[in-house]
């Protein structure tokens, strides 16, 4: 087995608050992600998912425990990572296309050569014709899609995504899911995806991590044994639904019965 791309050991994070209290967001979180793996993280709102992602992105540095990237202790952000944040976080003074081009500029890549790629990515997320619009002229879902395109432009080996499809309608979401699965498989990307949709997690992932809240701990690490490549038909398979139900049950807590659910 290859050495893990990301190895997290006993990660604990405590936030100080303005009123001088302390909020324990994570408690002894352990996880490994191997190169090329697609790992999803699901858990109730406020359990610490974003905190984990921000630590993996190198944006939070005062935590207890150890985080290592490619076998080396994490010492800050790495260039070969694409991050989709929970908020779109676009630069309001840049057009959609210029926002997508931001990583190109930051990483000093060839702008001219990358511009067609930016256009392609925008088209992929369904924003053809909106290249020159400013963020505040886009709808919420459009902004989120620009952020997704921005995370992909420099073709990073590792993708960290925090509910990237939260503001998208069902159809666009399906398209994007399929697209993401394809991109990940094709360029052998390692993906860490935070999502609220259990179905999405199961559909896309090699493994789904289930997190409990207050303080956030990883309570289960579920290998998804569905064959690849996967298409939407797989949803009909019994393994798919049983896995979804299993995760759902884990989230509902031990005593919960498997309630029917509107949201998967």
């Amino acid at each position: 087995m290859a050495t893990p791309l990301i190895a997290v050991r006993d990660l604990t994070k405590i936030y100080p608050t303005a009123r001088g209290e302390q909020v324990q967001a994570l408690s002894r979180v352990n996880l490994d992600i191997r190169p090329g793996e697609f790992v999803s993280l699901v858990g109730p709102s406020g359990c610490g998912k974003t905190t984990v992602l921000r630590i993996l992105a190198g944006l939070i540095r005062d935590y207890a425990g150890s985080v290592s990237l490619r076998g080396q202790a994490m010492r800050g952000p790495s260039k070969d990572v694409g991050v989709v944040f929970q908020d779109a976080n676009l630069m309001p003074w840049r057009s959609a296309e210029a926002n997508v081009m931001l990583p190109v500029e930051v990483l000093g890549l060839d702008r001219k050569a990358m511009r067609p790629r930016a256009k392609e990515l925008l088209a992929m997320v369904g924003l053809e014709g909106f290249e020159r619009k400013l963020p505040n002229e886009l709808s919420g879902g459009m902004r989120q899609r620009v952020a997704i395109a921005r995370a992909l432009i420099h073709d990073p080996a590792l993708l960290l995504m925090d509910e990237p499809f939260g503001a998208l309608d069902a159809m666009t979401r399906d398209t994007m899911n399929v697209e993401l699965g394809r991109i990940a498989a094709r360029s052998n990307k390692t993906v860490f995806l935070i999502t609220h949709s259990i179905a999405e997690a199961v559909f896309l992932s090699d493994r789904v991590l289930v997190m409990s809240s207050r303080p956030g701990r990883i309570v289960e690490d579920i290998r998804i044994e569905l064959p690849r490549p996967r298409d939407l038909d797989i949803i009909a398979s019994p393994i798919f639904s049983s896995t979804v139900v299993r995760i759902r049950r884990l989230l509902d807590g031990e005593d919960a019965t498997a309630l029917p659910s509107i949201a998967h």
Partner: protein
Amino acid sequence: MWREAAPPLIFVVLLLAAWEAGALWGGLDPLIMPAPSEIGEQLVLGFSSGVYPLHLGVTLAQSLAGFVIAVAMGVGIGALISISPLVERTLNPFLIAFEAMPKIALAPLVIVWFGYGMGSKIVLAAVIAFFPVLVSTILGLRACDPGRLDVMHALGASRGQVFRMVRLPGALPFIFSGVNVAVVFVLLGSIVGEFVGAKAGLGTLILYANENLETARTFSILAMLAALGLLLHFGVAALRQRLLFWAEPRRGTPGH
């Protein structure tokens, strides 16, 4: 506490030491740059004779009064202006034109209207310091987050409510930078007022010391002025900390 205060203290001590050394061996002209020790001596003399406390008190009182008026007027008029773009476009040219006029040239008028005592100095100080507060208030109120406004408008909030609950708190980061500038200009304003004619105040002391070529004494008075400035500055900083607790960058994030 100590960790916060240490770097500035060490810095100041080093600065003074270098200055003193320069005066001793570096050939600094005492007419331009007297040694810190001489300035310190002047401070001691001035305080022990009771001359400095009196004048310091006058300038402090003038500046504080001017400061309060400047901030109140700046925020008040800024608010008025922000309520309607029409008011802004109509009124603003006059305020700016007035601000662009050198106040010294208007000093006799101010004395005629506000008297020879502290009144005229307070007015000059307030008038000079009010502009930065005004401008930053206007631009701060204008930079309001539209999402937050939506919340208020959807509730049918009155203009006053929108102002009090959203615009003003949202503009505070701007207003505080105006206030920070005002801190300095209110002191300059009251000194300018004293230069124009006064019986007491640090500005009058500067005139005497300057005419007598007592440079060390001039610097000792400037030091008191600087102390006043820092006092106000840190006062404003403390207030900012209290009011803008929500805007302070969270600790534990990289980038600093």
